[in-house]
């Protein structure tokens, strides 16, 4: 980066064996004679005005991840360099197979990448080659930017052995026997080399030369389908962005139709000109193939953000990824099942759930799931509607709903369970006639109630397999006070057997 001509040289230091060493330096420091790996005190002797900063590996890594996210504008397959720990080196692998033609060829892609990263203030060394190993070596120790197809075997031969991603100790011991370049070992007999220096050396050599396949593991899961739009001039207005999203959504419909799929989860990635990438994701309750609905979900998602999209100087690339798609059983199956009326109804309900989930967050739109236990507060849970299986979701919204809940009693005139249950039972002060009978009076939330009628106890034993030994039994009572308020109370613990002074709790309200 260009700084003021009088600015001091800048170095970054790192602790190596309890000594501060130079881990990175700028051109001014290099011009003053400072070298990589030099101790800080030596460097200070050369350049007393040295400005030094400590290495922050976490922030380095975060920055690298940001760059990696940005690099997804070229290909979805971007991976971090998984070099051995001994090599503190920050690199990225990109698999651009089948992507280069989108940018006008490999040369154009490399030039574009270098220019854009350069404009963001990064110095990059890059190389495009047939194998990840060769590209790694050439980027660090070679000169060429692009190795022609099939030429990587020749190109890496004159490079130093460090280019094989080996631990420095191994490179040093190879150097002691006079093996300094890749070419030196490429044609040596393999068995003695492997016996002396380990199989790792041969593996790395084979990977660089393309004799052994090497897979890179991309950071982001690869989308089933992607569509994107690039802009000559960055866009920043909310309306423009919504319009682009709508256009992208309509573009994704045709390939979905061709594959017989409907969209369940998709992601928008907004690439800002300054390299920042933001993502938004929406989920749908059932496979969806309607562009307007998808666009509307994203509008809700954007509206639900706590602060607006930070457009900065604008976005120059917007991409829509289909992260998950399910077979689309569409209108045909619905028509067979029961007329257009029920289809329209079901659709409206599901669409509502999707919109609510997109804006409020999926976890805030829930439905009940039942559990097989008698303890009231454990007998049910809530799960996000959108997360449930699409088949279950359809059954739940349709007529076959009770089949999901086989254990529920049919409605009866006798009501034993309250409509409203408190999340945490609330402690009461009570006066009871006999220790194991219902209370005569109790005080709840500062108000006292006089019990007029009561039913019970209904004994619910503890779950010893979950709560352990010593958990207490609950005796539930339905009580009505003299005003007609109906409550669900319980006594925690059996008198005399489990506790001498059982506590009373309020657990629910009846209608």
């Amino acid at each position, binding site marked *: 980066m260009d700084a003021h001509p009088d600015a001091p040289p800048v170095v970054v230091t790192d602790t190596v064996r309890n000594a501060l060493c130079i881990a990175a330096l700028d051109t001014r420091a290099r011009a003053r004679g400072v070298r990589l790996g030099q101790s800080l005190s030596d460097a200070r002797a050369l350049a007393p005005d040295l400005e030094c900063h400590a290495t922050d590996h976490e922030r380095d890594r975060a920055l690298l991840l940001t760059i990696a996210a940005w690099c997804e504008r070229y290909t979805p397959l971007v991976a971090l360099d998984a070099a051995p720990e001994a090599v503190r080196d920050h690199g990225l692998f990109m698999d651009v197979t089948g992507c280069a033609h989108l940018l006008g060829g490999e040369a154009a892609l490399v030039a574009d990448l270098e220019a854009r990263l350069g404009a963001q203030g990064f110095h990059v060394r890059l190389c495009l080659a047939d194998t990840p190993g060769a590209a790694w070596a050439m980027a660090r120790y070679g000169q060429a930017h692009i190795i022609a197809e099939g030429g990587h075997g020749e190109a890496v031969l004159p490079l130093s052995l460090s280019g094989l991603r080996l631990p420095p100790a191994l490179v040093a011991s190879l150097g002691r026997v006079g093996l300094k370049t890749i070419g030196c070992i490429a044609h040596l007999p393999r068995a003695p080399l492997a016996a002396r220096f380990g199989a790792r050396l041969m593996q790395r050599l084979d990977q660089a030369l393309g004799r052994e396949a090497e897979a890179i593991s991309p950071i982001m899961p690869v989308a089933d389908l992607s569509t994107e739009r690039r802009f000559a001039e960055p866009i920043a207005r909310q309306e423009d962005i919504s319009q682009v999203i709508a256009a992208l959504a309509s573009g994704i419909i045709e390939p979905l139709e061709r594959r017989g799929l409907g969209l369940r989860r998709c992601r928008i990635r907004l690439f800002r000109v300054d390299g920042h990438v933001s993502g938004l994701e929406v989920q749908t309750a059932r496979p969806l193939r309607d562009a307007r609905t998808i666009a509307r979900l994203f509008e809700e998602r954007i509206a639900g953000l706590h602060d607006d999209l930070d457009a900065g100087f604008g976005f120059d690339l917007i991409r829509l990824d289909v992260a998950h798609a399910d077979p689309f059983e569409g209108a045909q199956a619905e028509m067979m099942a029961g007329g257009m009326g029920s289809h329209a109804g079901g659709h409206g309900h599901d669409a509502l759930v999707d919109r609510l989930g997109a804006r409020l967050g999926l976890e*805030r739109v829930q439905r009940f799931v039942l559990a097989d236990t008698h303890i009231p507060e454990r007998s049910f849970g809530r799960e996000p509607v959108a997360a449930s299986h699409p088949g279950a979701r359809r059954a739940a*919204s349709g007529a076959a709903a009770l089949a999901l809940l086989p254990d529920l009693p049919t409605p009866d005139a006798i009501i034993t369970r309250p409509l409203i249950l408190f999340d945490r039972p609330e402690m009461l002060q009570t006066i009871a006639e006999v220790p194991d009978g219902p209370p005569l009076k109790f005080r709840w939330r500062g108000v006292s109630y006089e019990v007029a009628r009561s039913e019970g106890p209904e004994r619910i034993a503890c779950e010893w397999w979950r709560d352990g030994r010593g958990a207490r039994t609950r005796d539930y009572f339905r009580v009505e006070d003299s005003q007609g308020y109906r409550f669900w109370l319980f006594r925690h613990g059996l008198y005399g057997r489990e506790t001498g002074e059982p506590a009373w709790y309020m657990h629910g309200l009846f209608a």
Partner: protein
Amino acid sequence: MSLSRLQTATDILTAHTRAQEARAYAAMAGTGPVSEPLPLGAGAVDQCLDGGLACGGLHEVRSPLARDIGAAAGFALGLAARAVQADRGGRHGIVWVSDPAARIDGGGLFPAGLAQYGLDPSGLTLVEPCDLQAAMWAADEAAGCAGLAALVFQIKGNPARFDITATRRLMLRARESGVLALVLRQSGEEEASAAATRWRVTTELSGADEIYPRGVGAMRLSLTLERNRTGRTGQWCLAWNPKTRNFDHAASDPARQPAHPAAHPVDRLSATFDRQDSPGAMGQVLDRRRDFGRAS
């Protein structure tokens, strides 16, 4: 900016709002009830309502005290269960939107209780937004969803933000879509709203139980129709029948009237929190008193 200019700006704004209101009312007067009314099952109430509750519309159910929320929720859920049962062209599902303020001390719905009450808990979608504004948005969205049978919007007290404009928006959206929209107001005062009806629900002593006289019988609730845009008002005592999903008339037993009516009327103050026009409480009133009525 001078004061007079500010004044003018306010006048223009007010005039604009008035014009909007006038248009909204004209629209409401122009379109009749979208679908046939939903009868409650109790003859006298249905007669008073000209056949039942207007389905595409907003209705308010309020409980004067926080502990009446059981009865009020019971009434609202009964109406919702009837709306689901009525089907009305494949409509199904109930959306229950609750304002976070109402959840803090109100507890949550209990699926086993709902099932006994005659309501399928799996048909219920619970929406719990993080604040009132988001809750109002969610209620608006649900009220406009034509596939839905009923919407219950649970709020607490009389929040200033849920004003007549907000209720009118809900009303219009429900009228367009035909959804039965219910506002369940816990410990709320009566206030001006666009709702077609407003019900005050309190609990009533339960009915006699032949098998076990000392036990709690069938639940009853005391229902006051405080406001009815299209007809008369009234007061009834009803009992919910989970089997038939009907509200039946129940004679309120004079012998079992509440033994101790409120000792001091001032103690029955209910929650009105952030209203500028609300009367100030006299003397020192504890928080829990405002919430839970009479302290003995």
